[in-house]
């Protein structure tokens, strides 16, 4: 097989890893004030349950993004340059979101104070919603195509990125991640919150069926190729399966199926882009896999690196999920370990 095509597939795999893993991280963050119930104290405990379901793993999940970015740079410099400069503002917003939620996760428990915790929760929610929507907008635009000039420079401007198809794409990823997150919470928690998450997941899979199904059909009719209809069918079946599995309290199965939906979405996206990495729009130029790719030598080197390291990464990352496999409930959450706000405030500069 042509190495450039292999790398197109590898990039798709890296994005799949990223969206499946950070997809439920985003979902958990987005649900932070939706799921918890009860009095103030109980809600705070439930929020800590939610944060701690992903506490040990969120950072490792985010590395899939850095790897996808780095691999695109190495294997498709033209793609990386055109896409990142073209998506400058959305990427900046995504980044601001990722910074806010990353810091909020790590610093939330460092100060034991209600107001501080609320601020961090807001940062986590904002930092989860923004990327969850904007990744969909970005990929929607890649499916639809971008206006490139003859030098492969994006010349469409920022507002053109907010077209209806891309915006529905944003809605689609947001709903899928919400669903994925609630299924994950049902799988990783115990007690009341598990029940609530499962109920929410049932409802969300129906919503996802409508929104994501509508977007996928739109993509198929307007921009895609015949064989990717299969992904639409797989995603629809998987979403129905999520409803059934949640009802049957088979949370592992439900989680696998919501992951399958995300995989199907990525296959649809990359399937429609092929053989371009950025399809043409309105008489502009397309950027093809062949034009964008690095030399055979670089791709060969990177292939060896990927072949040796990726299975290893998957192995030890899976192992950590096994280490932290225990379901969490409010009684597992220890007393806050952070310093009081008074102490932080009283420490003079």
């Amino acid at each position, binding site marked *: 097989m042509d190495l450039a095509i292999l790398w197109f597939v590898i990039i798709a795999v890296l994005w799949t890893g990223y969206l499946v893993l950070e997809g439920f991280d985003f979902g958990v963050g987005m649900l932070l004030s939706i799921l918890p119930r009860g009095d103030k104290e109980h809600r705070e405990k439930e929020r800590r349950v939610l*944060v*701690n379901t992903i*506490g*040990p793993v969120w*950072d*490792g999940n*985010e*590395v899939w993004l*850095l*790897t996808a*970015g*780095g*691999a*695109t*740079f*190495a*294997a498709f*410099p*033209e793609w990386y*340059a055109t896409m*990142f*400069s*073209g*998506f*400058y503002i959305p*990427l*900046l917003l995504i*980044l*601001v979101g*990722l*910074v806010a939620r*990353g*810091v909020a996760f*790590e*610093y939330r428990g*460092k*100060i034991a104070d209600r107001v501080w915790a609320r601020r961090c929760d807001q940062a986590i929610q904002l930092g989860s919603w923004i990327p969850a929507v904007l990744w969909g907008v970005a990929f929607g635009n890649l499916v639809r195509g971008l206006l490139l000039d003859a030098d492969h*420079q*994006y*010349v469409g401007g920022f507002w053109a990125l907010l077209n209806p198809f891309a915006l529905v794409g944003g809605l689609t990823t947001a709903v899928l991640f919400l669903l994925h997150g609630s299924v994950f919470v049902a799988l990783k928690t115990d007690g009341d919150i598990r029940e609530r998450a499962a109920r929410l997941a049932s409802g969300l899979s129906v919503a996802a069926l409508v929104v994501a199904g509508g977007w996928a059909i739109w993509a198929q009719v307007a921009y895609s190729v015949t064989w990717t209809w299969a992904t639409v069918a797989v995603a629809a079946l998987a979403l129905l399966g999520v409803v059934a599995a949640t009802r049957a309290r088979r949370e592992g199965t439900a989680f696998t199926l919501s992951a399958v939906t995300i995989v199907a979405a990525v296959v649809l996206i990359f399937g429609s882009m092929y053989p371009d990495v950025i399809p043409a729009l309105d008489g502009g130029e397309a950027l093809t896999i062949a034009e964008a790719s*690095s*030399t055979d*030598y670089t791709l060969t080197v*990177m292939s060896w*690196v*990927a072949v040796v390291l*990726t299975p290893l*990464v998957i192995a*030890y*990352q899976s192992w*950590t999920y096994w*280490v*932290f496999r225990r379901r969490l409930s409010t009684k*597992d*959450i*220890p007393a806050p370990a952070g*310093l009081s706000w008074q*102490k*932080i405030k009283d*420490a003079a500069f």
Partner: protein
Amino acid sequence: MEALDLARWQFAITTVYHFIFVPLTIGLAPIVAGMQTAWVVTKNERWLRLTKFFGKLLLINFALGVVTGIWQEFQFGMAWSEYSRFVGDVFGAPLAMEALAAFFVESVFLGVWIFGWDRVSKKIHLASIWLFALATNLSAFFILAANSWMQHPVGVIYNEETGRAEMESIWAVLTNNTLLAAFPHTITAAFLTAGTFVTGIAAWWMVRLARTKKPEHVETARNVYRPAVLVGVWVMIFAGIGVIWSGDVQGKLMYEQQPGKMSSAEALCEGTESAEFSILAIGPLYAGCEDVNHVISLPGLTSYLGTGQFSGEDSYLPGVYDVQEEYTERYGDVTADGEPVVYTPPLAITYWSFRLMIGFAAFSVALALAALWLTRKGRVSDNVWLGRLGILAIPMPFVACSFGWIFTEVGRQPWVVAPNPTGIDQVRLLTERGVSTAVPPGVILTSMIVLTVIYAILAVVWYRLMHRYTIEGVPDSVRDESPEAQDPDDTDRPLSFAY
């Protein structure tokens, strides 16, 4: 301002900021791993207390290193797309390798370390912090491979048809002699930073407790903080020797590879034998080296740094003018406005950043010597000046690291990829040609303001947390939380740690 200036300021602000957190993580992670190893091996509780204390500071610091690092990878494509197109075939590889080989290990095993005290066996838990520490250092290797290639492009050919640099040998890129000097220099500087941090904090605490004269406090000073002071001191000593040695190697390479950087570090106008090392220069450096007065100088030292000879024919160093003449003849580039390119970096910055890098590192020397003397033969110092020096010294190596990078990067100007004198001429890129052409200046200005404001807020939070957790000191009591030490029937106990 034009997109180019804004993109350069943005790169400078975000990179210098990112590199506040990086050296401390690189150096402190192995120190904390060493402390935990000492606990596992000796079972002496002092090492667990120190592990918990410095571990907390490490985590507060690491969080900002992580979140500011994402932008570092993204901004090449966002603001420097033409640079990315030109170098991507070579430059992208080490970045991708860093993510796959180092970042994953770093973040996955840090998660195990933070949350795993009661989840994995003592040995696996210890292995996790070591893997984390090794990965942070490995990560530095790949990033420096990418940067060293910009200083000294090797393993590459030029494709006439596409106008791009293409990789010919990954081995050459990863064994670039610039890298083999820059890596130890950066790593030892990071260890110097972390050693100063540990000694500074521990010395301040030792003095503070010793001055209370309360027996239990003096005991903690002797039993916990004094050993930590010495750990930091020995790290500083070895790291300090390494910094000087690797810096010396770098000087010689710089003389061969980027002669303009060497002469601009000295604001040396005319080529000369036995070039002096100027300690203080007065005059309008910003205007060039013409009217600059070198007030205090050490004879022959600059020649020695570059050539290994204090005097004689072999000690000849070219001046800024010589380099300008040679490069004009060889490359004769013109700017976008049609003006001839000035091949001299801004001398005020190169001259002073080089001196400030060295000068600020000197505080660590003072702290190491003072701490070593005042704790000799088992003494616990209650000398208030040692405590003050400790606190004063902590920020200094951070500043030195920043000036080191400012020197390296500004000294390379006007190039973003400096031409390799023994390499292929076409593999070179002027900074002004690297900036994104599709991004309007207003957009770059927006991102620069947004990032600067967010980073400023985070700096305040980071500082207050670091400060307050330092004042909190080592925990009074610690317990062995490992699964081996727990009652196996008690499966209902809460997590030992949670956010």
